[in-house]
């Protein structure tokens, strides 16, 4: 019992052969275990044997000495025989027992078809092809993105006209996951960046003796730009990627097809609640981020510039007008829309494989961060033009 317990393959079995000339016949005496692991070591030899020139009318493979035998052993022998036959040398098997004969029959002709290989293109062609493909993907992406935007806006419109279509539970759960759960991260990061901006600003402005203006710097830069940008990027990384992975995994397991056949619209079920949740939560997160940034700046002002909290608040108050704050918050729903759209759309574009979930998630995050920044630049131009 203990002996048979050890895997036979571990006792280093060997497959080997030797040749004997008998008149015009070349006998190949096979011995050992012709199973997958040991066969590896004779494979090269057999290939050489099939190519070599033989001074014989017939080559006979003598199976009488073969111990264990499996499909890998069968294949290498069949292949060798077939190669010899193709060169006009007769080859056959002798003394195969019944089981071995059945295996020879099973491992049949079909396997001789050349393994399908995709030919390699020259490097230049590959590079050009990849550039071309990338451009097309970009163009397609833009078109599909616009198309998806349209579909979602239509779905949102339907939801507004028939509020009963809205999946309230789903909406609230996404608001919690995308918004509330992001609070600690958003608070911490905006606080730190606020402090860093104040600290760097103070050390530069101090050279002109204008360090009191640190407050204006922090307040304006944070409320207009940094607060919303930072929050949007955090949300894109946290929730945009989650949307893609969730929807992508559902797509892969055909859950979305199942939804459609049950008469449920994936737009209503999956996309609208997520996009809407982000559009509601991002402005709120931004607001809290703004406050935390100001507090971060305040802490630096109090500790390093020895400003009293009252003075900090008063200076901030005079630096901020409504639109300083309004500009930042106004941008939030638009950025949320972009993040939600890209997250959901990338998820729906997942194809069968697990890898495609990964690559779509990466693309979703990269694209949404890119677009958030582009959108911010466009808004900056717009607000300058209207003079806010």
């Amino acid at each position: 019992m203990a002996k048979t317990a050890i895997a036979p393959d571990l006792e280093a079995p060997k497959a080997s052969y030797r040749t004997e000339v008998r008149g015009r016949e070349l006998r190949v005496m096979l011995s050992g275990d012709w199973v997958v692991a040991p066969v590896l070591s004779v494979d090269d030899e057999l290939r050489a044997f099939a190519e070599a020139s033989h001074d014989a009318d017939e080559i006979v493979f003598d199976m009488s000495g073969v111990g264990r035998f499996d499909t890998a052993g069968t294949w290498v022998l069949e292949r060798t025989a077939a190669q010899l036959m193709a060169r006009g040398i007769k080859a056959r098997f002798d003394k195969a027992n019944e089981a071995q004969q059945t295996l020879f029959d099973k491992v049949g002709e079909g396997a001789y078809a050349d393994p399908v290989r995709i030919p390699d293109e020259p490097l230049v062609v590959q590079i050009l092809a990849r550039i071309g493909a990338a451009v097309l993907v970009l163009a397609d992406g833009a078109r599909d993105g616009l198309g998806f935007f349209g579909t979602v806006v239509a779905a949102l419109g339907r939801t507004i006209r028939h509020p009963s279509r809205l999946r309230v539970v789903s909406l609230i759960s996404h608001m919690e996951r995308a918004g509330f759960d992001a609070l600690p991260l958003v608070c911490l990061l905006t606080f730190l960046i606020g402090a860093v901006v104040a600290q760097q600003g103070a050390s530069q402005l101090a050279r002109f003796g204008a360090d009191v203006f640190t407050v204006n710097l922090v307040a304006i830069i944070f409320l207009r730009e940094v607060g919303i940008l930072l929050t949007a990027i955090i949300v894109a990384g946290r929730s945009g990627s989650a949307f893609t992975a969730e929807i992508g995994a559902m797509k892969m397991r055909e859950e979305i097809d199942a939804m459609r056949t049950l008469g449920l619209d994936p737009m209503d079920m999956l996309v609208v609640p997520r996009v809407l949740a982000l559009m509601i939560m991002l402005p709120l997160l931004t607001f809290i981020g703004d406050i935390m940034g100001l507090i971060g700046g305040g802490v630096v002002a109090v500790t390093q510039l020895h400003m009293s909290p009252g003075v900090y608040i008063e200076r901030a108050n005079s630096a901020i007008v409504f639109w300083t704050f309004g500009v930042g918050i106004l941008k939030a729903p638009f950025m949320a829309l972009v993040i939600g759209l890209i997250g959901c759309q990338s998820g729906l574009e997942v194809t069968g494989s697990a890898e495609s979930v990964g690559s779509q998630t990466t693309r979703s995050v990269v694209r949404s961060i890119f677009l958030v920044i582009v959108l911010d630049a466009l808004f900056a131009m717009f607000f300058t033009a209207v003079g806010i």
Partner: protein
Amino acid sequence: MASGEAIIEVKGLTTRFGDNVVHENLNLEVRRGEIIGIVGGSGTGKSVLLHTILGLKKPDAGNISVFGLDLTTMPDDERRLQERRWGVLFQDGALFSGLTVAQNIQVPFREHLNMNPVLMDELAAVKIEMVGLRGSAAVLYPSELSGGMTKRAGLARALALDPEILFLDEPTAGLDPIGATAFDELITDLKKTLGLTVFMVTHDLDTLRATCDRIAVLAERRVILVGTIDDMLRSSYPWIREYFHGPRARAAFAAR
């Protein structure tokens, strides 16, 4: 390596998921070189039993030995050596979605053997042909396969290393009748030629009749009966009676 010796032994197995006890004091012995069919109603724990024997789920009580070795207490690296001695076809195929059919079949070659790529391609083609797939299926990804093709590709991967034990979870579900018959023949041929032991979960009465040496019936959290088809037909246990004397069974056994 006498046939008849127990190659898988399950003793006093209990498994549960939380409060849901799936097996309780279950005993089963599989002999070397036999094809054993596991039957039982949906949700009686056939797949869970298979997963437990494979070591994918820890038993809550009892012993499982495969090849005479207790796998539950074995260190991981020794386990891995034993694992290449079996092949598994999961209920839903479980092909690697990022690899083509040929690459899926080659995974065990890559992992366990230092094989040259040409031979690897050839052997993949051999297996693909053996399970009745067209050669052109080699370059397809799992998402591009039909349900039946997925089953066949999974079987080809399970057979890659010519294992000693083959575990099959509903291998003929989703195959057309011609394919299912070809599958039955393939399994019996492999059993005869390679001395394969097959542990097969199946509901397919034709496969049970055509291939299985013995059948084990799972009910009430344990194996209630192990025996040949004739034993099953003679049993007076209500579920077994219904299973083996129902209209479908009559059609399948009419040939006998």
